[in-house]
């Protein structure tokens, strides 16, 4: 029985996804049904299950390991899922998104993400990657009438499939190298060969795996899909995938690169350092000229991928814990910011251009205040979660001696503040446009309140969560 303990959180989410599908199937035409509730039950259940598995380090069938690292990511994913669910109800009704499919796909995606964070076998990671990717491709194009959505989904699908193929190719080389796809076996095989320079096969394997992950976390130069997919997808889906996919992909990235591939550090750290630097610079510099808020936040998410990569190239204890903390901080912040954009949209009007935000302060002072907090947190200004996340990531990088990357990091943060402030300027300092803005439901407001409390909690009293993050990485040291 203990064999299956590690599967409990993701099974709960999978069950609730199936329930959501059935609910849609048995729904009478015109009957209103709160399908999000099923998802919420599943997600709360998974979060509680993850909490009670803490420190149990449950292995399942040798390929899933619910260690604290995976459980931490699980809880982050549940939080992302819960916030998505509470924002969704009105939004999908206004945008005429089919509810059953939407909730089921979102839940299946979360299931794939949890699996990805817990997988200890490269093939299972691939499987999880495909589960979450297929769900997210469909979610991107779920507004069938929208040409932009279809284009975004198609682009995302093609490039995603391409990157999956590269990843699989990397898995094949790894298998050729070590005779196994299990992470611990690969690690042992590599450390046995560690003496002398590594073979070409080893370098190819590492390179292809890195490319596969870099696609998913949208690091430059593998970021091409990100702006289009984020812009074309319904805003609520953008909020979900910008945080969820990133968390899952970085979890697997860290698990694969920071333990079994450690013997090859000297070879991949310089390459990933360069990618991290370019990603931070490119994401912020291109973000500056955007006039569409979703596109701007897409480039900002590219830049944030660069910051999190700093944690990977630091390859030390603090770096690993910093990745976890940053993913959590980024999740609550970004889903809050994009959630507000989604909540302000109507079916006809996306409310995602910069000018749509002009004078928001007068008509929606509360929402404007929340949006300001989220934007300042994205910019890394104290006392918010974003500041502590950046501080921790840069500390890890400096500890490793990556002074230049830290300097690039802080300077690009300043540049990014410029474009976050463009939204703030629009909201507060520009006279209002008569944009039609819908009411925000109580459940969504509660979700926003939760996110903003989390942002300040992580920013002012981060000790508890930092300790948890440090506890979580003991198995991938």
């Amino acid at each position, binding site marked *: 029985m203990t064999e299956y303990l590690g599967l409990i959180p993701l099974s709960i989410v999978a069950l609730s996804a199936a329930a959501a599908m059935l609910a849609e199937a048995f729904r009478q035409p015109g009957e209103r049904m709160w399908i999000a509730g099923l998802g919420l039950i599943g997600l709360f259940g998974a979060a509680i299950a993850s909490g009670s598995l803490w420190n149990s380090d449950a292995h399942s069938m040798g390929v899933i390991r619910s260690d604290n690292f995976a459980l931490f990511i699980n809880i982050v994913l549940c939080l992302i899922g819960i916030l998505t669910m509470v924002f969704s109800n009105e939004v999908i009704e206004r945008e005429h998104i089919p509810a059953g499919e939407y909730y089921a796909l979102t839940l299946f995606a979360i299931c794939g993400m949890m699996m990805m964070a817990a997988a200890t076998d490269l093939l299972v990671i691939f499987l999880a990657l495909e589960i979450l990717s297929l769900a997210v491709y469909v979610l991107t194009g779920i507004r069938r009438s929208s040409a932009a959505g279809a284009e975004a989904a198609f682009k995302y699908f093609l490039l995603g499939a391409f990157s999956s193929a590269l990843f699989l190719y990397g898995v094949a080389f790894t298998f050729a190298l070590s005779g196994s796809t299990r992470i611990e076996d690969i690690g042992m095989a590599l450390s046995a060969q560690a003496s002398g320079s590594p073979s070409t096969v080893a370098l190819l394997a590492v390179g292809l795996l890195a490319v596969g992950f870099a696609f998913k976390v949208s690091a430059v130069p593998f970021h091409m899909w990100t702006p289009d997919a984020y812009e074309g997808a319904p805003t609520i889906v953008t909020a979900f995938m910008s945080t969820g996919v990133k968390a899952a992909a970085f979890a697997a990235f860290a698990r694969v690169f920071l333990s079994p591939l450690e013997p090859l550090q000297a070879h991949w750290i310089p390459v990933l350092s360069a990618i991290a630097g370019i990603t931070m610079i490119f994401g912020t510099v291109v973000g500056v000229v955007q006039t569409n808020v979703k596109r701007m936040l897409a480039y900002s998410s590219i830049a944030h991928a660069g910051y999190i990569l700093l944690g990977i190239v630091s390859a030390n204890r603090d770096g690993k814990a910093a990745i976890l903390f940053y993913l959590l901080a980024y999740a609550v912040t970004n889903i809050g910011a994009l959630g507000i954009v989604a909540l302000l949209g109507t079916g006809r009007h996306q409310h995602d251009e910069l000018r749509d935000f002009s004078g928001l302060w007068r008509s929606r*002072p509360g929402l404007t205040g929340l949006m300001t907090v989220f934007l300042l947190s994205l910019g890394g200004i104290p006392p918010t979660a974003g500041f502590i996340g950046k501080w921790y990531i840069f500390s890890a990088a400096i*500890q490793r001696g990556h002074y230049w990357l830290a300097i690039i990091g802080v300077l690009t943060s300043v540049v990014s503040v410029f474009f976050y402030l463009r939204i703030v300027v629009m909201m507060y*300092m520009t006279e209002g446009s008569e944009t039609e803005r819908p009411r925000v439901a109580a459940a969504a407001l509660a979700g926003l309140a939760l996110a903003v409390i989390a942002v300040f909690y992580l920013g002012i009293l981060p000790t508890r969560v930092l300790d948890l993050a440090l506890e979580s990485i003991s198995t991938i040291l």
Partner: protein
Amino acid sequence: MILSLIVFLPLAGALLVLLAGGSGDRPDRERVVRTLALAVSLVTFVATLLLWWRFDSSSADYQFVERHAWIPAFGIQYLVGVDGISLFLIVLTGFLTPLALLSSWDSVHKNVKMFSFFLLALESSMLGVFVSIDLFLFYMFWDFVLIPMYFLIGIWGYERRVYAAVKFILYTMAGSVLMLVAIIGLAMAWAQASPTGTPSFNLLDLQSLTLSWPLEKWFFLAFAIAFLIKVPLFPFHTWLPDAHVEAPTAGSVILAGVMLKMGTYGLVRFAFPLFPSAAMHFAPWIAVFAVIGIIYGALVAMVQPDMKKLVAYSSVSHLGFVVLGLCAMNVQGLEGSIYQMLNHGVSTGGLFMIVGMLSDRRHTRLISEYGGLKAVMPRFVAAFLLITLSSIALPGMNGFIGEFLILLGGYLWNSKFAAFAASGVILSAVYMLWMFQRVNYGELTNPKNRALPDLTPREWALVVPTIAVAIAMGIFPVAFLRPMEPAVKRTIERVTGRSFAQTPAAGGWRLAIWNGGGVDRQPPRRESPGFKPPAGVEPRTATREPRSAGAKNHD
């Protein structure tokens, strides 16, 4: 407890204001909000006075220290305390915030609730900057200060407010973030050196750290640039005129009165004591820019057609004096600098209020629009004159003490700097008096000025305390210099390695500045544990002009 109370009282008041103001912009709640905000700021001011009253003037240590573990895994503490250097900056902040609120009483009507909220939040964060001893805590307050100020300029400012606000925040933030890297680097260096391996952000710990010369040099530069941008020292001053001119009166008062001092305070509290040999190495260069700034600021101020811009450039000039005094690193220079920080806060804050009063009446700040105001508003002109005289350092007023001490200290260090800087004193008289004359004397030519009302009771409440403080500080400097002195001496000991004779001179207690600043009685330079001069840098021996000989070695 009293320090946390002082720091967080305005913030609590700010949140209270949000609640009291209702949702949205409610003009009917304006009065309640204003009164509440003013009351909170006055209570805070009284608390800062209480702090001064209970302060032990004979001690160089931090007082009212509060220490709580905050993020123990990284050695981050909530560690606050006050010494003679920060004490008066706290009192100054407490003094200026109610005046700033009062100065906006009739001019700000757009969403008063948020205006008061931001002003009080700003006060909290500035006070936090002055009490923090933990570098992490300090950085959080330091960075957060920008946000309320950004909104104050951007929402309630004049025509080009958005441009000025964005320039202000980006410019000053770009400087600060490099300091963040240096702070982290410093804490990591501590972690490597300490047996436990945990980092520390405690200033007192980090001061005892020995760094390699390249590291010390880069860290010092990162700190110094962050602070010098804030001061702002020439050539980093370009954000200041924009920010000052576009900010509402209350914003200008706080910006000039307190925020600029955060830069000079940072130098004397953090940059110099943490990196003494790098500080000594770069001090002559910083002083060169300070002197250029003194003269340049004065010359540019002279030709400004806009009164606010004139006062803004005069700040560049005055802050140049402060930086020069800090670089001299002797008792006269340092005490003069700290004194001048306070003077500048009072007199420039006063000038911005005066300009704000004119601007409220006529909605223009151009000097050419005025002239002959003496005929219509004599009381206003009298107040204007007194504040002008305080700003140009008339003997008997506060500015004189500060500038005199700085020039004295500068002269003891390097007479050339003092000679050039002294020309700034003359130039300041030129540009200030010339402006005063063009605005207030001569024929009343502009018909729009004929019916201007004189000072209202509210404006009396603004100018009377300002002038009273300016005169008091000119007549009783000892009341302010005495509490400063132990901390000043300790800072000098830490930075230069000189030590002061412990016994006071015969005839009771005297200020060190009046008996040669201890310069005469110095034993040879003490090798402090933790301090290793880098190769090529001679430890300075104490002579009558202890720094000029050493400074030449580096040039």
